[in-house]
């Protein structure tokens, strides 16, 4: 288990502010955020490349903040993998074991184990220069896992791979994490990638952690406008709340909420229902289909009900541009956020 409390750091270009994060034993956590949010810097603080200005990092209850990188036993796979170019694949994997002054037979057994687990026996005598992106990644994982680290940090491990390989490697990472029962922290800037691998997701922005939760929690209850936008709540509007309903332009949306005055309303495009034209009731609006687009796994239509809405469904919509339809926005699917 890793616990970070009140971590502050200043690296000139990057500042970390009041980072509080707990990752449980055997948990796969993704740190997600836009470029420049400070994700990589946070990882570098955990590895021990820099000393924080304030705050502590504890692993299994032990305060590792004052320890040097080499004393922490934290696995680290940087974005460019940084395989040692002067050593073969097998020597790269045994590097950490040799530092621990183990007996040679024991090192050989552990390396063979790791090579078999990652299915890279065919490249064991090759130099890193002659490996493909996927192979490099496996070797980097093997090298980091060989020493049985307390936590494994992966800094954008899939970003150097092509699209098809990325999904495959994401599954493999997940499988590997379950097999070794390890605690993994995986940094990425892609929401799909994070949802593919992680048990929980920590959203980071401007040097601090904004929200931590499961995919479902974050999608259903984003904490602020930034998170809502980041997890692709495409329908976001400024409105005025009176506590029981919100006025957006000419439209009034029923939703109990604790705010009075200016608010932001976020509605996920998959949470808007298309209903029969005779349908009546709360939050039912008539609208005009303004556009339609077929995407790989879903279809998306734009509807104007006085407010411009995007609605997506897994099946192809039977409507065309210019059709008049009715939609329903169930109040439980409306997220109201205080405007800052």
């Amino acid at each position, binding site marked *: 288990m890793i616990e970070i409390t009140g971590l502050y750091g200043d690296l000139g270009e990057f500042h970390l502010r009041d980072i509080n994060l707990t990752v449980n034993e055997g948990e796969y956590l993704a740190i997600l955020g836009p470029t420049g949010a400070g994700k990589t810097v946070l990882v570098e603080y955990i590895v*021990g490349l820099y000393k924080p200005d304030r705050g502590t990092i504890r692993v299994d209850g032990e305060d590792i903040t004052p320890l040097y990188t080499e004393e922490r036993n934290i696995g680290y796979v940087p974005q460019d993998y940084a395989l040692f170019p*002067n050593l073969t694949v097998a020597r790269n994997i045994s590097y950490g074991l040799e530092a621990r002054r183990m007996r040679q037979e024991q090192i050989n057994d552990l390396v063979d184990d790791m090579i078999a687990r990652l299915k890279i026996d065919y490249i064991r005598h090759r130099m890193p220069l002659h490996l493909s992106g996927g192979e490099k990644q496996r070797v980097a994982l093997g090298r980091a896992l060989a020493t049985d680290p307390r936590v494994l940090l992966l800094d954008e491990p899939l970003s150097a791979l092509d699209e098809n390989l990325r999904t495959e490697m994401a599954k493999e990472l997940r499988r590997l994490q379950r097999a070794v029962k390890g605690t993994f922290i995986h940094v990425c800037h892609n929401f799909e990638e994070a949802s593919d691998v992680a048990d929980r997701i920590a959203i980071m922005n401007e040097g601090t952690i904004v929200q931590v939760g499961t995919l479902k929690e974050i999608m259903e209850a984003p904490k602020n406008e930034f998170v809502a936008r980041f997890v692709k709540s495409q329908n976001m509007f400024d409105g005025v709340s009176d506590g029981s309903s919100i006025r957006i332009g000419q439209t009034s949306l029923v939703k109990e909420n604790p705010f009075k005055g200016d608010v932001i309303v976020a509605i996920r495009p998959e949470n808007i229902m298309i209903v029969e034209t005779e349908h009546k009731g709360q939050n039912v609006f008539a609208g005009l289909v303004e556009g339609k687009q077929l995407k790989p796994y879903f279809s998306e239509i734009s509807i104007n009900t006085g407010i411009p809405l995007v609605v997506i469904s897994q099946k192809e919509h039977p409507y065309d541009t210019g059709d008049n339809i009715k939609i329903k926005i169930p109040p439980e699917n409306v997220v109201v956020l205080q405007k800052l």
Partner: protein
Amino acid sequence: MSGKRKGRKTFHTIFYGFAGFLFLYSAYLFLSNVDQLFVTEAAIETREITSVWDQDREIMNQFAGGFWKDPYFWKSLNLTVVTTLITTLIASLVGIPTAYALSRHRIPRMALVEVLFSSLIVMPGSVIGICLIVMFNYGPLWKLQNAMGFRFAHSLFPGMVIASLVLSFALGLSAWKAAFDNVNPRFEQVARSLGSSRWRAFRTVTLPLAKSGIIAGIILAWTRAMAEFSAVLFFCGTFRELPPSRFSSFTKLIHMDQADWVSVAVWAQVEFGNIEYGFALAFVLVVIGGLSVYVMHRIGAKGYVW
């Protein structure tokens, strides 16, 4: 593609043609009886004036000044090689760790340090020499030398080592720093995350990756030290005309008495009219320099020198 290749072929032809011409021409100058080309009445008169070198006069009119028969030549070569080896050793022992520190740590006002060392490289040796004289012959360092009872300036050791060290160190440092800059610090960081100490990470990862650059730096420092002329001349002067009583018995034992730094000897010989001897000494320096650069190319450290 073929146009590019043709252009390169033309370039190679011209380049090697020119280089070949230069080599053959210098070989011709050296091998043909250069004596006849340069020995004029005036030169002979100059030689007459320098009658202090009685024993030299016979060999002076021989091929290339008969330098190989002259103990002064072998003593000078001995002195230069030994001194430049000491200089290179000191430059490497101090410079390699310094270059590593400069490359890895953020140092405030780093630009200032870099400007200082880079401007040293473009300084003429005479400027370095005069700065060394002012530094050692005045002020606290002068008092220190008086207290200790010996002189830095105009001494074989440490005078020559100090004079040749300045530029040798500056040039070596820039090569070593470039070598370490070329090694991604990420390698060391990962090595340390795997439990390696700083020293093991340096020894097993950074050092092997920077190896050719480091060796290039050592050879550069050595050739630069050997090529030093004006700083040595300014700071130490010449020793040949000094009476034997000025040299310690140890200096005589290691055959460095009445000897000069080879490049200084080249100048001294030409100055005294013995051009062939000077040219022969220059040829020796060319051979040593050329061999050193060839070794650099063989170890794959091209690019550090042209």
